[in-house]
């Protein structure tokens, strides 16, 4: 007989989560990085990363998911918004309208020229905001 107060834990789920968590974070970064030219982007990447943390919170508990994240989710929302605004202000500082995409060519040895632009900074900002919002909502609900 299992006493009724036993916390719900599953060894299978916990072991699987250790691997799936890393794969999900990798997939989210993959989706984020290729978002400019192909389907993907900050929003879906952030959702997948948020789902990874939610899975961790379900398999272990909310506290360990918070310590794993290290940063308070609300701080993520704020810094993401700042980052997105910063991407817009770069264009403003260069004399173009707000949020114009500014591109810079960065030569990388052996790989040739790579393009890096403000849309990427904006996307990273969206990524952080989506992770933050998802975790604020889900972790708060899960703690009740």
């Amino acid at each position: 007989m299992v006493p009724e107060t036993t916390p719900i834990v599953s060894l299978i789920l916990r072991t699987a989560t250790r691997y799936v968590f890393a794969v999900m974070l990798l997939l989210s970064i993959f989706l984020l990085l290729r978002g400019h030219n192909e389907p993907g982007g900050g929003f879906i990447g952030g959702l997948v990363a948020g789902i990874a943390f939610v899975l961790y919170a379900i398999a272990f508990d909310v506290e360990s998911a918070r310590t794993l994240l290290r940063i308070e989710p609300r701080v993520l929302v704020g810094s993401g918004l700042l980052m997105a605004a910063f991407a817009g202000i770069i264009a403003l500082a260069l004399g173009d309208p707000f949020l114009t995409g500014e591109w810079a060519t960065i030569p990388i040895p052996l790989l040739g020229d790579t393009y890096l632009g403000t849309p990427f900074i904006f996307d990273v900002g969206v990524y952080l905001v989506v992770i933050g919002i998802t975790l604020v909502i889900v972790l708060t609900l899960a703690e009740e």
Partner: protein
Amino acid sequence: MLGDFELLTLTSNLVLGMLILTMMLSFIRLVRGPSLPDRVVALDLIGSTVAGIIAVYAVANRQPIFVDVAIVMALVIFLGTIAFARFVEKRITR
């Protein structure tokens, strides 16, 4: 004789038909299911079938981009089923 392309179309149509049949059957289980776990499993099966349909669609239309959609779909459905299972367990132990 069937060419490669015709064979691919035939196969993908056949597989799509089977997947739709699976979806219909699991939908019946979702509606009728006598207990909550039955319904949860049926919902999980529907989600996996959707991921399969997206994958077959990607192959049939030669659009490898859709495979990623199937991957994300499978991950989300996995999490949904786990969350459901957790609530079912909570309900039983209560």
